[in-house]
């Protein structure tokens, strides 16, 4: 009996230690982040994005300055928190990455397949054009409020579809987004998991992506984050700018209403 009592003590001690570690990991990273102050290596990538935006490029040799991200052609300021949204010219709801692909194809004459092929950095890459452009656009929205529109019927439909997808269990693990992101104060290994069904978690997430990932040395976009979530669930690869991504983003963005944009963020 004395033996099992000690074992109980050991188990309890182990559980406490695990909780303590989760806390410690967040604290250590917060400390690390505060050492950076207002600095973030993403600023270099923002500069690259700004150049990419204004340079005449592609087969058509034009810049992206006529690209309409929702607030009129060429307007970059404060667009991030109001995407995804409905666009009349394409008669569809689009997110930032999807819209940038659209502009690069329609204005600059790039091939959609080629953009999508190299859209996110792989192992050993030092950043892609899309990552730089997204960082630039997000940076120009710093401090603005998240106000993803829900006035057009297509926007409402996207939210509904996004919500359904969020809870839809699929794949060999029978996972949904909700499996990890419907409860507060949960973690996977030592990573805190945001509860995306509530304003607090959705805001903390929506407003801090894209982000410079210190462990990878590149800016990662929300589209990349979502594709990786799908990969971890063993679901088919999420295509950038696709309906599934847009709908899920719409769900998260509307839940994040009122958050203050603070991207590019700085992540582990």
């Amino acid at each position, binding site marked *: 009996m004395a033996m099992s009592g000690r074992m109980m003590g050991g188990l309890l001690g182990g559980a406490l230690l695990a909780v303590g570690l989760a806390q410690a990991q967040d604290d250590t990273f917060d400390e690390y982040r505060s050492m950076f102050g207002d600095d973030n290596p993403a600023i*270099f990538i923002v500069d690259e994005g700004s150049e990419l935006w204004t340079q005449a490029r592609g087969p058509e040799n034009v810049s992206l300055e006529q690209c309409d991200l929702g607030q009129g052609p060429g307007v970059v300021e404060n667009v991030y928190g109001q995407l995804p949204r409905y666009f009349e010219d394409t008669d569809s709801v689009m997110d930032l990455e999807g819209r940038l692909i659209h502009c690069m194809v329609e204005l600059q004459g790039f091939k959609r397949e080629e953009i999508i092929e190299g859209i996110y950095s792989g192992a050993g890459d030092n950043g892609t054009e899309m990552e730089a452009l997204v960082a630039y656009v997000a940076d120009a929205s710093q401090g603005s409020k998240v106000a993803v529109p829900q006035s057009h019927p297509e926007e409402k439909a996207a939210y509904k579809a996004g919500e359904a997808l969020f809870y839809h269990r699929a794949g060999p693990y029978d996972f949904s987004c909700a499996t990890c992101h419907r409860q507060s104060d949960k973690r996977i290994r030592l990573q805190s998991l945001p509860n995306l069904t509530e304003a607090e978690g959705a805001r903390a997430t929506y407003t801090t992506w894209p982000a410079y990932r210190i462990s990878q040395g590149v800016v990662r976009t929300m589209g990349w984050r979502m594709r990786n979530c799908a990969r971890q669930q063993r679901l088919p690869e999420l295509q950038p700018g696709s309906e599934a991504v847009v709908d899920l983003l719409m769900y998260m963005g509307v839940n994040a209403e009122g958050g203050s944009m603070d991207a590019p963020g700085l992540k582990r």
Partner: protein
Amino acid sequence: MAGRMRMRARMSGDVAEVKVLMQHPMETGQRKDSEGKPIPAHYIKEVMATLGDRTVMAAQWGAAISQNPYLSFRIKDAKKGDTVKVSWTDNKGETASTEAKIG
């Protein structure tokens, strides 16, 4: 991409606090790209900081320093308005520098 730098310098009590962010891939030479080919080593070897014509720091760096390094250090005997200059040289002989007035 290498070469961009951002520096801030301000008085904090009686010392000047300098923070520099440097854009550099800091490749160790041990990594492979997506096609499996080795990525050649490319890293900063030397970092120099000067206050006016006085060298206040000379650092030897290696491949263990992270990509886009962030450096913070303090300088004694500095005052507001002094100019701090920071420069680096990498293993390919490339170099970059930036300067800032202490605020």
